[in-house]
């Protein structure tokens, strides 16, 4: 699950998985700007088949913050 999450984020940002870990935050990676953030959220939603409420999206500060939304 965590590995897949990192891979999905990497794919959304168009970079290698190796550059990321669960603590990686927007700003740590050049492509993860405000537009990149929207793409990361969209790709995570699509790949895991979940919907993250718009109110909570600003609270996602690092990759691990997605985990509570992904279910089991």
């Amino acid at each position, binding site marked *: 699950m965590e590995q897949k999450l990192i891979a999905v984020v990497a794919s*959304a940002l168009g970079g290698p998985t190796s550059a990321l870990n669960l603590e990686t935050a927007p700003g740590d990676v050049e492509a993860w700007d405000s*537009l990149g953030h*929207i793409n990361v*959220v*969209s790709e995570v939603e*699509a790949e895991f088949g979940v*919907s993250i409420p*718009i109110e909570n999206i600003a609270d996602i500060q690092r990759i691990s913050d997605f985990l509570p939304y992904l279910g089991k």
Partner: protein
Amino acid sequence: MKCAVLSNVNVESLARRIERHEVHVAQGYGAWTQELANPASETWAFGPSAVFLIVDGAELFRGQRGLDPALAEIDGHLAWIERAAERSRDIKFFLSTLDVPARSPRALKHGHPERQLEQHWLAGISRASANHANVYVLDLKALVEDVGRAQLYSSKRWYLGGLRFSVLGEKLIAKELQRVLDAQVGARKKCLLLDLDNTLWGGVIGEDGLQGIQLSETGEGARYKDFQRRIRQLGEMGVILGIVSKNNEGDVFEVFDRHEQMVLKKEDFAILKIDWSPKPESIAAVARDLEIGIDSLVFIDDSPVEREAVRAALPEVTVPEFPADTCELSAFLEQVYKDCFFTLESTEEDRKRTGSYLANARRTAERSAAESLDDFLAALRTKISLGKLRDDDVQRAAQLTQKTNQLNLTTRRYTEQQVQAFRTTPGMAVSIASVADKYGDNGKVFLGIVRKLSADTAELDTFLMSCRVMGRFIEDQILDHLVNELRADGLSRLRVHFVPTRKNAPARSFVERLAGGQVVSEDESGGKTWEFDIAHGSPVTKPPYAELLTR
């Protein structure tokens, strides 16, 4: 190349998905007409060769009250677009068609202004395209129709960042733009080579016959006729068409000349390679004859074995996967068009091209692709499972004698009762073999009937193999094995008959590559009997490569 994307919504994320080209996105996405109108704008300073206008219908009419002001707004935008196209004739403009979702709940009687707006826009950009050689219509509305709004748009991305399209939508649109850009730097293929059996028609002409193949205006055979229509359209757009098929030329010409449902005619093809040589050799010969690069060829064949053979021997050839479900043939060809032959416009010259290649086709000696063929055969991991006929094989054995026309030495047809009787006739041995390879099991495809004529001599009453696995020297290896068995039984001579028919040219080439035979009889119709001394060797010269198991 350099391109600019202008839009009335945020297309920054979309633009990032375009590869291999330099993309400029105008800052401030509400200002797309101003960008167009102002010759000093950043967009023009960037110096694009192509400008894409991606117009979002919902955004275009946001806040509009009533149809007439909306139509007037469209006219205003169109005027600016035409002016820009007029001013910059060396820049290509790609204008998107419009999708306008219904904005408000309304009674049915109230009409459908969205459709009118879409129509008005389409009429306007079509007129611009007709009036200006550098203006093209990019049909994004078609994408909306194919994919659906729920998939193509995303309200969350809209509210978060003014991004109208979903990730999927952006990817699909970026692919369209990518294709348009790539087409201008010229990576277009030139020639489409097609297999025949189970590709241009259903079934195998050599076995099913003229009336047996599937090809019709309606019903199941229509999927092949529709496929042929699409292929002909490609030909009309300047794609050179060719045939590469393992078949008897006579059978194929009969289909072209006599099958009423054939859409494609012989004249539609610049080249017809119809023989029994390995397809990589034929394809290499096509490139030489037509004097075009191997890398400008696209090859379509239903057989995974042939596709793999071509990919292995000629990696420069584009070999698309054939659809598993032949109902998808037309959609498949549409994709092949987009991936390989997409073009912004087709000129009169393009349309004449097949004809000129036909005239120029030059026959040259065929280079042997034997080395790559051996490698390819080894990589197939062919397994032959050979055994004496069992009770439950009888039905298939009779069917093989009835249906096999091509690799069949004697073409003797037997009923199940006759085959059953052979099993218990002293001096007769019936063998059957199935063949599997890395692509799967081809089933029972070989049948051999050996009859003892005397204490030291046997004959091949029947030796046949289904065309499914032809061209892989499996028959050579099986005959070699049967010869070894006969020798172990104390036999020293084997008689092999060849009875020519209209369809068994493959059987002729098989007997002709056997070595050391003495002709013992010959008749006027071309029938021949050879006798081979098998006491000290085998008539088979091709070295075995498959794994042969006996049961």
